[in-house]
């Protein structure tokens, strides 16, 4: 055979069950790796013992038990929620924009959320003193959601055209919004106290270091709901791949699908960014890899991107906290170092369509 399957545009795809199984296996591996490595190493046997004790409700004051339950597990859970939310949100955005380069970080949704969170931290007590008391820790999440929501709408309006969104416009709008958010956070950092400055930096660089059970529960619930809601978007998003007018002719309520997609993304990205800061490129890479092995059907792309995103964030975070130990590399910095070359490769691949 002279022509390979790929060269004549043949599709060779793994079955949905295989893809989901592989995603779950990767996530499990990343979880075990993340749980055992760190400043205090926990062997697999010890890990098994701790998990069994925790399952049976036994509280054993062994150091590995304390380290795992109070430090590592919340961080791992936050990583799963963040990766899952970002991977799923990336897939939803790409489906809605009909564009494989839409990433919540790249097009500014994450920075919009981060800027809104930054404003709340530094100026919140002055701007809206009532909110924190009424909304509690939800204040940050709701503000970050609002920021992400506005940016998503803005990008959608700016980059839309008859034949879908214009890739170049979308990416340029993203540059502008990222620059604005950078300037805004810079301005805030001048006005901030030392303590506020540290949390601002945390926002810009992204980290799972702030994992506390209360935050984990909050993000976990929001991401879980957003992921569940996103699954109802799978069939409409498949139709939208044909173009919005063709989707409407197939009976899809395009406007409602858009509204839902934007709300789901803004909630997931807002909640994640409010607790972890900006973790870029997960929403770009996870759906891209899933589509390469499973094809573009959103019924599989959405859940598999969530699984792969979670595995990627856990693996990246494990590297981030061990590679320079005892110092910790900010997670957002690491995902950018991995994500940017991937993005450039994708740009090269799609260069004729930009």
């Amino acid at each position, binding site marked *: 055979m002279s022509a390979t399957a790929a060269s004549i545009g043949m599709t060779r795809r793994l079955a949905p069950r295989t893809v989901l199984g592989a995603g779950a296996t990767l996530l499990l591996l990343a979880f075990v790796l993340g749980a055992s490595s760190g400043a205090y190493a926990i062997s697999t046997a010890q890990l098994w013992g701790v998990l069994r004790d925790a399952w049976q409700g036994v509280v054993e004051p062994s150091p590995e038990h304390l380290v795992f339950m109070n430090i590592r597990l919340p961080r791992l859970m936050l990583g799963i929620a963040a990766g899952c939310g970002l991977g799923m949100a990336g897939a939803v955005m790409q489906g809605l924009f009909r564009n494989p380069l839409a990433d919540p970080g790249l097009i500014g949704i994450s920075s919009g959320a981060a800027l809104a969170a930054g404003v709340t931290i530094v100026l919140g007590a002055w701007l809206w003193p009532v909110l924190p008391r009424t909304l509690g820790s939800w204040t940050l999440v709701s503000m970050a959601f609002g920021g992400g929501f506005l940016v998503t709408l803005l990008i959608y309006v700016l980059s839309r055209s008859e034949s879908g969104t214009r890739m170049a416009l979308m990416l340029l709008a993203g540059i502008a919004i990222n620059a604005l958010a950078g300037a805004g956070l810079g301005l805030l950092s001048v006005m901030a106290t030392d303590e506020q400055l540290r949390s601002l930096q945390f926002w810009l660089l992204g980290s799972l270091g702030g994992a506390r059970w209360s935050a984990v529960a909050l993000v976990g619930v929001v991401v879980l709901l957003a992921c569940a809601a996103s699954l109802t978007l799978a069939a409409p998003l498949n*139709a939208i791949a044909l173009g919005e*007018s063709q989707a409407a002719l197939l*009976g899809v309520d395009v406007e409602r699908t858009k509204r839902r997609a934007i709300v789901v993304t803004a909630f997931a990205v807002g909640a994640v960014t409010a607790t972890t800061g900006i973790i870029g490129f997960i929403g770009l890479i996870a759906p891209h890899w899933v589509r390469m092995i499973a094809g573009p059907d959103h019924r599989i792309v959405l859940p598999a991107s969530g699984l792969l995103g979670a595995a990627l964030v856990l693996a990246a975070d494990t590297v981030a906290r061990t590679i320079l130990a005892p110092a910790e590399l900010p997670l957002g910095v690491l995902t950018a170092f991995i994500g940017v070359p991937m993005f450039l490769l994708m740009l090269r691949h799609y260069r004729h369509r930009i």
Partner: protein
Amino acid sequence: MSALECIDAGFQVGTKALLSGMTARLLPGRVYAILGPNGAGKSTLLSLLSGQRRPTHGEVRLDGLPLERHAPAALALRRAVMPQESSVAFDFNALEIVTLGRLPHRTAPEADEAGIVDSAMALTDVAALAPRILNTLSGGEKARVHLARAMAQLWHPRPGGDTRWLLLDEPTAALDVAHQHATMALVRQKAAQGVGVVAVLHDLNLALRYADEVIVLGQGRAMVQGPTAKVLSPALVSEVWRTPCELVAGRDGAPQYLFGGLQPSAT
């Protein structure tokens, strides 16, 4: 009786009328060809009939009810549109694209959904393209995949007896001559099953051979409409398209046009 009607329908963008004063009554079980020179408003008329655009004047009605009052989901069960060209996002393969034609039926699927998709693909001769990525196919192959999608969407008669409508925007433009005739024969066959077929065509000879009735547009207005053989006279054709032509009879008796180089027979 069920019908798709235009009542003084028009469509205007800004101050420019793309189509105006269109009145027509289309019946199921017949093949209609929309003809006319470039820019005459053919695609505009088709998009009004499909509900993709709402008329800015007048009305388009299906079964007596304005099109926009029909629920989009209910309409999708009985009306399919084959687009002129359609860019698809991501690497969907031909099989997946045709399967999307069954999307409106997902709440009440047939026993043999996969079989319907396979049969539709066999009808338009794209079964062998099933695993190929749509965006790597040629224009004619893509057109036949989209036709198969429309066929799959309208596969079975509606249980309530609602009439089905198949609207095609230049279905034969990218096809080789064998597939042009196969496609038109296929939609004729669909019409024989009671489906109303409306196709924008450029090839007058295809219209002569396969259309029951034609609607000839010129500069955004209906010039003339009626039974094909009666309406498409050499005088009309040479006037509307400004091309000399001659009507000849094929060996099977079907009238066909020869174009160009001749003196218009009307003068």
